[in-house]
């Protein structure tokens, strides 16, 4: 909805103070979006893709060259810049998508399961990027089903069957789960009073919400 992919039914939402219903184009120019599936133009080269998105996001012709070169360097795409996007391996495709999403320095970034199907090293790389961006003050929204990734986030919203069942920082959520289920699974590595892992937290909270309903 925020990205303009779904139509809001009621209520208001603002991105950087701009109403998404009243001024959708302007609101969208403030955000970057990276889809789960690779969705850049496969038949264009890396550079042509970045050129297009730079201009589509309103970067002026004079600054475009500089900006494209900058993201190519940041994401280490220099040696692939003339390769067709569809011929890149998955990890590089993801980097290219990220580069395209960030080309206009958006203050808000949406990442839809950015690391599904990506190898461990690229994933680590990726999160380093995300964390450094968030330190620069970029608001980032990530959806993921890897619970260890969720741990990196500042604020988590747990979704179950299309509904939010819990919101909070990772520690808050863990404490909440611990209250329901004082000692989840006694294990030798863990003494009393230690918080459950993110995965255990998630499972506990889902079970609680099921019980609450029935």
């Amino acid at each position, binding site marked *: 909805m925020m990205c*303009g*992919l779904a139509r809001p039914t009621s209520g208001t939402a603002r991105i950087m103070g701009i109403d998404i219903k009243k001024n*959708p184009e302007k609101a969208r120019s403030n955000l970057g979006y990276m*889809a789960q599936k690779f969705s*850049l133009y496969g*038949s*264009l080269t890396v550079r042509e893709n970045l050129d297009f998105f730079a*201009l*589509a996001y*309103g970067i002026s012709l004079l600054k475009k060259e500089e900006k494209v070169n900058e993201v190519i360097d940041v994401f280490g795409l220099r040696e692939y810049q003339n390769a067709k996007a569809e011929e890149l391996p998955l990890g590089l495709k993801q980097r290219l998508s990220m580069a395209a999403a960030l080309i206009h320095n958006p203050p808000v970034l949406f990442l839809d399961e950015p690391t599904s199907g990506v190898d461990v090293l690229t994933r680590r790389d990726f999160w380093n990027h995300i964390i450094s961006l968030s330190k620069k003050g970029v608001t980032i929204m990530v959806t993921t089903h890897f619970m260890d990734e969720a741990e990196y986030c500042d604020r988590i919203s747990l979704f179950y069957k299309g509904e939010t069942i819990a919101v909070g920082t990772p520690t808050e959520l863990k404490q909440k789960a611990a209250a329901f289920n004082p000692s989840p699974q006694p294990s030798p590595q863990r003494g009393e009073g230690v918080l459950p892992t993110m995965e255990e937290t998630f499972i506990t909270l889902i079970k609680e919400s099921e019980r609450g309903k029935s």
Partner: protein
Amino acid sequence: MIRDFLRRVAALIKKEFRTIWNDPKSRAIIIAMPLMQLLVFSNAVTMEVRNIDTVVLDRSRSVESRELLSRFENSSRFREFYYAENEKEFRQYLDTQKAQLGINIPNDFARGIKSKTGANVQIISDGRQTNSAAIASGYSSQIINLYNAELAGNKGSGLNITVRNWFNPNLEYKWYILTIIVAMLSLVTTLILTSLSIARERELGTFDQLIVSPLSSFEILLGKSIPPLVIAMTLTMVMIGIVIVFFHVPFNGSIILFFVSILISLMAIVGVGLYISSICNTQQQAILSVMTFMMPAVLLSGFISPIEDMPICLQYLTYLNPVRFFMVLSRGIILKGVGISDVIVNIIPLLIIALITLTLASRTFKRKLG
């Protein structure tokens, strides 16, 4: 503001051209396919009836019957003559379609002519091919009538008919068929190109990326319709050039009128194609929808049968069909050299069709998302 708008649209147009050009399949659709079809169809698609094979059962075997048959043999319309010995053989030639026409001369033929009591000749044509049958028997009666007139002697009191064919004096079938083939080929190419464009992006997921960008529906519409329009325009002009230079079809109308009417016709067709594309989720759906649209659109365009001969309600239906006006315009301007008023009458409906389909297309981009 306006500069931002132009810059975004220009970027989209450039990207469209690049994606079309980089893909060997779409390159084939816009270059190889239409040009090859133009060459093949211009020679293959003909409604002229030539090379008629004939079977003859001559029971008279007289000077008079020989005289009549030699006139058939000297006509360029007829090719092969088979002489049957009996009725059974005669029948077989027609049954197996070895001959399309049968001439049956009874044994009292010569006697009838000599005694001036009148003689009969039977012409049998193959009704399985209605059109050729009618034309072939037409040729035969022409030949027989001439012979008849000669036998009756020149009394000088008969009616002489003078036929003149305007706009195509020698009824060169190629003139007619070529202008239509060009229109058809640009129709097919434009429809395929536009109907695939949005459906392909939807299938690959790139359309989401466009929707998320600050591009508005109107900008996407412009970026999606201008490249196919330019490509189709260029293609049509090249094909018309080929038709004029290599096939010697005369161009009687005004080039400017032609350019404007082709542009507007193609705009209406781009509109139809983009609308089809916007309601389809995959390329396969898009191609199937194009087929579904093409069949009635071509049949009800006046290409196969004149619109004036259709039932009244179907005649009104053809007003919704952009191909109809496209056909009238391209044929009218090239062969007839119609003036501005005739062109405008046909352009207005096309403009309306373009406006409606393009608006629907840009609305559907978004509605599909919810």
